[in-house]
């Protein structure tokens, strides 16, 4: 039996002492970032108090131990996502991971009139790198049509895929509407025409069991900070042969076997060839602690908890005629809405005044406005420590309504 109240005890941010506007903090912005359990914080601190050393750069015990720890972390993440250890590249996060595919793979292999498929619901990190690649190579960015629920479907991918399709890159769960996309079947379709499949896992990997091998996608990007881990660390998981074929993008220490005055440089094998410079070692240890924590909780439990909260919130909100919900069918721990005649940011300020943290605006998905018919929304997002009481606080605040200026004058 999943006990959310027991889980909450693991998180210092949820110890009851944290206030916002003098009120108990109700944190419903988990699609943006998540709180960290004490063991993740301890793992990071331990790097600074007990294990401080660089990695790959010396012969003394302390450093050797650090190399072992980085390798253990890589193994833990590979196990969590079901990939090989040497398919896990540490990056600064999801954004850096997608950029690495764009500039390491796409820039090297795409040519004029090749096509890159994305969708209008994508986050900036899965749009702007492809725009840049298109500008630099002459390739074209094309958009997968959305279905009536603004969802990406394999059927609609079939409508736009062609022999020119070299890359398809979509979020497995979008950061605004949060529909789960059938990336496994989309990958099959893309592979049939010889393209590669890139999956932005920023909102899926933290919330559900993801199996890299089973999905058979080519690259999977995600961030640690959205899954109880530290900021500034994440992973690009890629099929080894593709990683091997890519450019390293960043040159520097730790990524090469050697270089000489004639301008040649021989890169190390993946994943080291992508990890130039001193890595975020404290972050890597925290990342490992985070995935181990989630495995103990069980990703199926996390997903089920998200869905239960979504259903609970939906059942409570459906009677409120003032609330417009844009993703009633997604069931993935994100509810995106507006209050009639209230600008999203003004609503978020009113909720802030009540101690409730939500995101408002465009959520970095700035092409979605046409699909959903509004240029800004409020987003409430849940995670494994969110309670029904948190949802009640939101529902009550929305039912109470109130003047947006209460936030300034009450």
């Amino acid at each position, binding site marked *: 039996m999943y006990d959310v109240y027991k889980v909450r005890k693991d998180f210092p941010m949820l110890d009851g002492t944290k206030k916002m506007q003098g009120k108990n903090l109700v944190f419903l912005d988990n699609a943006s970032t998540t709180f960290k359990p004490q063991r993740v914080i301890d793992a990071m601190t331990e790097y600074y108090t007990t294990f401080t050393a660089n990695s790959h750069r010396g012969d003394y015990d302390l450093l050797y131990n650090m190399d072992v720890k980085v390798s253990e972390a890589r193994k833990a993440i590979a196990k969590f996502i079901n990939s090989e250890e040497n398919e896990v590249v540490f990056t600064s996060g999801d954004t850096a991971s997608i950029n690495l595919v764009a500039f390491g793979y796409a820039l090297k292999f795409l040519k004029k009139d090749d096509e890159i498929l994305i969708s209008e619901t994508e986050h900036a990190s899965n749009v702007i790198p492809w725009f840049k690649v298109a500008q630099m190579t002459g390739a074209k960015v094309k958009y997968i049509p959305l279905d009536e629920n603004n969802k990406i479907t394999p059927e609609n991918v079939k409508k736009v895929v062609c022999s020119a399709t070299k890359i398809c890159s979509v979020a497995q769960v979008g950061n605004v509407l949060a529909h789960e996309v059938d990336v496994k079947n989309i990958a099959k379709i893309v592979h049939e025409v010889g393209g590669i499949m890139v999956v932005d896992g920023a909102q899926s990997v933290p919330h559900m069991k993801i199996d890299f091998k089973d999905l058979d996608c080519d690259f999977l990007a995600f961030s640690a900070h959205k899954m109880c881990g530290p900021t500034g660390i994440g992973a690009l998981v890629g099929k080894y042969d593709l990683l091997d074929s890519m450019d390293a993008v960043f040159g520097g220490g730790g990524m090469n076997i050697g270089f000489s005055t004639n301008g040649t440089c021989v890169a190390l094998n993946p994943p080291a060839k992508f990890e130039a410079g001193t890595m975020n070692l404290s972050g890597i240890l925290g990342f490992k602690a985070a995935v181990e924590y989630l495995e103990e909780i069980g990703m199926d439990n996390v997903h089920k908890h998200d869905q239960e909260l979504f259903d609970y919130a939906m059942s409570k909100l459906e009677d409120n005629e003032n609330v417009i919900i844009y993703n009633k069918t997604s069931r993935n721990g994100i509810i995106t809405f507006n209050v009639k005649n209230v600008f999203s*940011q003004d609503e978020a300020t009113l909720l*802030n005044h009540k101690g409730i943290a939500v995101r408002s605006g465009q959520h970095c998905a700035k092409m979605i406005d046409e699909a959903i018919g509004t240029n800004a929304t409020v987003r409430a997002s849940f995670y494994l420590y969110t309670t029904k009481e948190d949802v009640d606080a939101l529902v009550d605040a929305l039912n109470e309504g109130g*003047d947006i200026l209460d936030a*300034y004058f009450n």
Partner: protein
Amino acid sequence: MLTLTNEMMRAIIMDHYSNPINKHQPPKDGYEKVHMHSDNCIDDIDTFLLVENGVVVDACFDGVACAISTSSTDIMCDLLKGKEVSQAKYIIEQYHHMIHEEEFDESVLEESLAFINTSKQAARIRCATIGWNAADEILKDK
């Protein structure tokens, strides 16, 4: 100290949000424009000033804006119209002092005093100053 009650301040903000008379494109050529957008709000506005012979003859703005930015910019336009550039700069400076809870000269701020509580919602300071920063940008070399 302040002569405005909370109720009056609320009414002022709501009035300028619901009915922003200065929210429109310039009626003729000659206006200087500065575009500003917010990193964390959707505010994306152009502010226009018509400055002739050292006087702000007219002010208006247009674009996408939340309640706070719409209202604060609309009030600013009212305040700056007809002022000499030096006076206009002084008003903008005093407004910024007020927003940041520093000592300020309330005698020149009129309806913009309604924004005195902005610091209670610190994330919205940018909204309450976006039009003011644009006007400041236009006037800074004058």
